């Protein structure tokens, strides 16, 4: 591909990627320093004015974290490059979540401006909560939502103000001891969103939150808990960008969803951390009778992502779905997948995973489907498609499927392919450059999944994919 075409393409698909590549002088009011010890955890708890039980919860989690080994017997050895002593576990502006836009500090506002959370979008979206480092810096809800009784707050506020709602589920879907990184999050969590949607309330517009990492060597440990009461419906969107830094940063979130009887939760993630970030996230949902949980997950950035959203299908006729797109470029490893644990009769689950590996990128699908023996008429469908762009791209698939019981069916299919020469030839013959043809083919590969995203996300994703494809051919 000639240079002029590349430039042309760049012009055409200008994405505000570099806009994320900046940072402001660090002047944090509270800083827990680097390294992790009981003092750090106690300090975080003290700064946040937490109840005794939360402090104990944190300390217990720290103990578990220290005991648990790294999961390198199955996971990437790259995990060994995380040096926990060099990470800053807590930073805060020391401010309460603001209620009006005027109260938000100017530099924070500017960050949001550059991140592209425009005023009009804020109006459109039901509530915006943007997280500047650890604490929710801005948090607003539309009045009508408040009237309906929807609670949308930061994690600390949620535990402090509404313990009767959040405490029974906090740390129950994902116990601290689930894995090393959920233990780490449980010990040092700050920020994130706690949402409660009351019985029968159906949110028409999605709730949205942006997360950022803005301090070097600073891990971000947000904690999200969404409870949809009986018959409630909610869509939550989470988008990530992070500025580029010299040394690796760690992002380790815990997201717990609880869908009670007949409730529906849709959780959408677009992850585009810069490619020195370790993104190790634990996400799991409980679905009660006839509830539906859908994870839509798109991973484009980070150095190593390990994320396997799961649904525990606890009630009869519960449904779980994971749709995921992963794009791995040079130096990236997208280790993503899904877990479906069937615990009741007539539960169904569906996993569709599409991955694209460019250059030396490596994408991995890791999945688990479990159907114990007392169950009847459960169904699972898993499809994993991988597209390899360059000769040295890499893809792996490691599913694990256990089936017992009566009338249960499981099917798993995976395929690996490349963009066919005929397709490219056909498009080039009609005047597209090779790069454009390739982008088009790749977008076609993920198109049916992109449709599942809300409009503005799918447009943004298409652009991101175009940008990642740049220079990979020709």
């Amino acid at each position, binding site marked *: 591909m000639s240079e002029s075409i590349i430039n042309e393409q760049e012009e055409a698909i200008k994405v505000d990627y570099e806009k994320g590549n900046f940072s402001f002088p660090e002047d944090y009011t509270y800083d827990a320093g680097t390294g992790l010890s009981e003092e750090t955890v106690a300090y975080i708890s003290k700064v946040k004015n937490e109840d005794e039980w939360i402090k104990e919860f944190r300390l217990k989690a720290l103990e578990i974290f220290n005991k648990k080994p790294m999961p390198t*017997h*199955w996971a990437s050895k790259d995990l060994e490059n995380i040096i926990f002593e060099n990470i800053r576990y807590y930073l805060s502006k020391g401010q309460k979540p603001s209620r009006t836009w005027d109260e938000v500090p100017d530099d924070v506002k500017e960050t949001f401006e550059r991140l592209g959370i425009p005023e009009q979008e804020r109006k459109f979206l039901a509530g915006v909560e943007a997280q500047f480092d650890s604490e929710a810096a801005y948090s607003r809800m539309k009045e009508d939502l408040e009237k309906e009784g929807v609670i949308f707050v930061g994690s600390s506020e949620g535990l402090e103000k509404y313990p009767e709602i959040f405490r029974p589920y906090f740390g129950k879907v994902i116990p601290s001891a689930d894995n090393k990184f959920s233990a780490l999050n449980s010990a040092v969590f700050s920020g994130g969103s706690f949402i409660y949607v009351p019985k029968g309330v159906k949110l028409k517009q999605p709730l949205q939150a942006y997360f950022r990492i803005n301090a070097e060597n600073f891990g971000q440990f947000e904690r999200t808990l969404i409870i949809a009461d009986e018959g409630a419906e909610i869509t939550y969107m989470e988008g990530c960008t992070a500025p580029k830094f010299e040394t690796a940063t760690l992002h380790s979130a815990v997201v717990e969803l609880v869908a009670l009887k007949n409730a529906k939760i849709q959780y959408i993630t677009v992850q585009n951390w810069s490619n020195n970030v370790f993104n190790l996230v634990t996400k799991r949902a409980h679905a009660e009778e006839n509830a539906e949980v859908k994870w839509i997950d798109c991973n484009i950035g980070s150095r190593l992502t390990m994320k396997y959203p799961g649904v525990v299908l606890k009630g009869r006729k519960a449904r779980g779905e994971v749709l995921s797109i992963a794009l791995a470029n040079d130096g990236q490893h997208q280790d993503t997948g899904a877990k479906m644990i069937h615990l009741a009769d007539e539960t169904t689950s569906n996993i569709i995973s599409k991955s694209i590996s460019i250059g030396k990128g490596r994408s991995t699908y890791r999945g688990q489907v479990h159907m114990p*023996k007392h169950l*009847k008429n459960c169904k699972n469908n898993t499809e994993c498609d*991988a597209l*390899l*762009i*360059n*000769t*040295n*791209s*890499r*893809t*792996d*698939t*490691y*599913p*694990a*499927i*256990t*089936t*017992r*019981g*009566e*009338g*249960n*069916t*499981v*099917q*798993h*299919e*995976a*395929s*690996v*392919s*490349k963009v066919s020469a005929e397709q490219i030839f056909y498009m080039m013959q009609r005047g597209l450059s090779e790069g454009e043809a390739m982008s088009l083919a790749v977008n076609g590969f993920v198109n049916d999944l992109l449709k599942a995203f809300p409009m503005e996300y799918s447009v943004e994703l298409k652009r991101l994919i175009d940008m990642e494809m740049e220079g990979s051919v020709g």
Partner: protein
Amino acid sequence: MNTTLNQPTVISSANEPQWLLDRRTSGSQNYSNLPVPAAKDENWRFASVLSQDIHAFKPAPMPNDDAIQHALSHSTLVEDPIAEFIFVDDHLVQSKPLSKELVDKGVCFVSIDEAIQKHSDLLEPHFLKESTRLGSQKYFGLHASAVKAGALLYVPKGVEIDKPIAVYHWSNQDKGLICPHTLIIAEAQTKVSLIDVLASTTEENQGCNISVSNIEAHPSANVYRKVIQNFNSSTLSFQLDSATADRDTQLENIAINLGAAKARYENQIKINGSGAHVTMYSLSVAEGTQEFDQRTLQTHNAPNSVSDLLYKNALFDTSRTIFSGLIQVEEGAQQTDAYQTNRNLLLDQRADANALPGLEILANDVKCSHGATTGNIDNDELFYMLSRGIPHRVAMQLIVLGFFEEIIEKLGSDSLAENIRKLLEQKFASKIKP
């Protein structure tokens, strides 16, 4: 007996060559030093913990005449083999040598014992050279330290053998350990077929089998290897198979697993030349509390080759199966076609099928796919047959046999296929309720 129970003494006939002694010693060290596999090990995921202590099994002495007679009279699965060995507890009790014509052409079919004495040069490049990569390194070590039975089959360049060669291994002694070994070296432009049959002489004797087979297929060789495992239901069995396929080879592996309390089958193939076509088929029927643990690896090191794997399991009662497969396509192995399919038929709601189909692809111009399905008998199919007057029991049997027919017809020999169908029918007869 002193306290060195953990240190099996290296079995050596008087004149074993140094290279073999070295390999035996290192095997024995591996056996003693490597830890007992734990469920945390990815290669042993889903496998139940070994309840028996392998140390309790010891090589058995020469069996009595009754056992030998029983073995001889029941070694009938392969009709009219061109050559045959029958071992009972690793002791060669009968052999039908190759015809003089084939011997004159340079074909060599000898027991491992004899090969060690007379054909050290043929053995050295391959025999016990490489351990398994699929998790049973410890037990490979035990095999290496103790092996004396089994066959070496060497086919020189250009020789084609049309009829199959059969090797029977019988386990007879209670707490007896058998270590059968099969080494097939097929030089360029050859054709050969070998069938291993593993079985027990009685219904009670609790034996332990650690068998190893290794196929070296040189350019344009055609090798067919079938193994039928039908031990009694208290035996413990490990089959550690490997094969290397060079340019333009045709390699066909068929494994039929019916017996044993717990049977682990590891099969790894390595494709080192382009144009190779390798197939791996397996059929297992699990009943009672049987556990079949299947681990496979297809490694493509060269471009333009095909490998195709199909493992079918039917599960009765509270039996378990584990299928864990991996396709590895190395960098540069373009135009690879690699397939991996696992189908499990659950015939009892208490049965438990686990599937871990895996892919690791480092080349972009490949066609790779894997599929795993688990399900019950299709009620529509059953209804169709019932509505045409076929009794339930017969209908069930037909469906299950039909499920396996895909593998059976690949056996390539009508008489063998018929014998296998009979074995399956026997096994189903007691299982499918009237």
